[in-house]
């Protein structure tokens, strides 16, 4: 139902048709297909919307539930985020994209040890591209990011997590990208991404949701179109130890970060990243691995397999996190 509701919240009636028509079959969801059917038959936008919602009220409407904890995608709790929000499935991740910010609101991955090991043997290779399955007025394009004044095209689900060349190329869609401070993207953020991959190899599997936070009355907009986040988060759930927390960083050339609970993140971002987790798990701040600066070794893995847990706790204690 959520996908329909958001498509219907778009301002014009033809947008849902566009959204339903474009993209590969894999990317479409049952909800969108039912939207298209109803829209084709019924002229009334309102009636179509009601039918669409009714037709898709079954749980688990997502076509790519594997990316989400218990198959449940992140939930937008702030209704202002839902305007022109559309969900897209890709091989290695799923995003909810906002036509208001022309960025993703979140990007979700289910990472496994095997996938990360495959990703590590894959050289980086890809090209940034506008997301063709979005209406062009809602999508960022390459020109928007030109002369950005110190902002990189920052992946939310990182290309280095992708297990196949096709998945990696998909990760370069601008629907998976936010304007990210160059100093952050090339340093702290990369270290956080690496530490999460190292953790996946130790833990076997993790669920990760990454996203921007837009705070304040006014925001910078690249080319007047693409909103620049004020903060960026990466929330991680470890189903093995049943704990979840999030890294939170300023979108600035900065090496400081905070760890916050899933509940605190929801209050800040308006997004419940792991709706199916129990509230006691959401309210707890649990330790996450310290960002790993270590270079990946050529032809091998960055090894951190020794006595990791207490080591990370010690590091956190030393850094005051």
């Amino acid at each position, binding site marked *: 139902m959520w996908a329909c509701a958001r498509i219907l919240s778009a301002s014009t009636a033809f947008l849902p048709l566009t959204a339903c028509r474009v993209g590969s079959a894999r990317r479409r969801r049952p909800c969108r297909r039912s939207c298209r059917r109803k829209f084709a038959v019924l002229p009334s936008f309102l009636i179509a919307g009601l039918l669409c919602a009714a037709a898709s009220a079954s749980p688990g409407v997502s076509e790519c539930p594997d990316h989400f904890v218990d198959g449940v995608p992140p939930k937008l709790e702030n*209704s202002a985020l839902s305007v022109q929000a559309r969900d897209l499935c890709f091989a290695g991740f799923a995003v909810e994209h906002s036509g208001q910010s022309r960025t993703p609101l979140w990007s979700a991955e289910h990472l496994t040890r095997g996938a990360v090991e495959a990703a590590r043997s894959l050289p980086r290779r890809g090209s940034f591209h506008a997301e063709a399955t979005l209406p062009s007025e809602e999508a960022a394009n390459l020109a928007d990011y*030109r002369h950005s004044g110190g902002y990189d095209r920052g992946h939310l689900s990182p290309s280095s997590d992708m297990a196949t060349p096709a998945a990696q190329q998909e990760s370069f869609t601008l629907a998976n990208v936010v304007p990210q401070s160059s100093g952050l993207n090339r340093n702290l953020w990369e270290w956080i991404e690496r530490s999460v991959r190292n953790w996946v190899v130790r833990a076997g599997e993790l669920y990760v949701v990454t996203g921007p936070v*837009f705070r304040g009355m006014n925001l910078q907009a690249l080319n007047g179109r693409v909103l620049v986040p004020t903060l960026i988060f990466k929330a991680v759930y470890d189903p093995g130890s049943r704990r979840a927390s999030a890294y939170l960083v300023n979108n600035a050339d900065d090496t400081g970060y905070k760890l916050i609970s899933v509940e605190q993140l929801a209050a800040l971002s308006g997004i419940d990243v792991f709706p199916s987790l129990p509230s006691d798990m959401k309210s707890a701040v649990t330790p996450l691995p310290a960002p790993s600066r270590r270079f990946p070794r050529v032809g091998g893995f960055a090894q951190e397999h020794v006595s990791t847990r207490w080591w990370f706790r010690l590091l956190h204690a030393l850094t005051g996190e």
Partner: protein
Amino acid sequence: MGIIKPFGDDSGSVGIGGLTIENGLDRVVLYGGLEITRDRAGLGLARELAELLNAAVAVLSADPSLPDHVAAEAANSALVRNPFIRPAS
């Protein structure tokens, strides 16, 4: 390497070891870290990097109107109202 043509587009991105290369029309950016080990793997990485840099030098040196410095980049951004402010409930 032949995967990206320096300054040829603003979309291509490749990795050489731990180094990330992002192509652009007005700049090519390299960041990350690279260990060139004294072995065949190191030679391969060194060649890839050399090929990239040689291609960049070729493009720059072939440009007859190459300025001393590109003009300071004017940020292409504007201040807009935040559309995501939580509606009062």
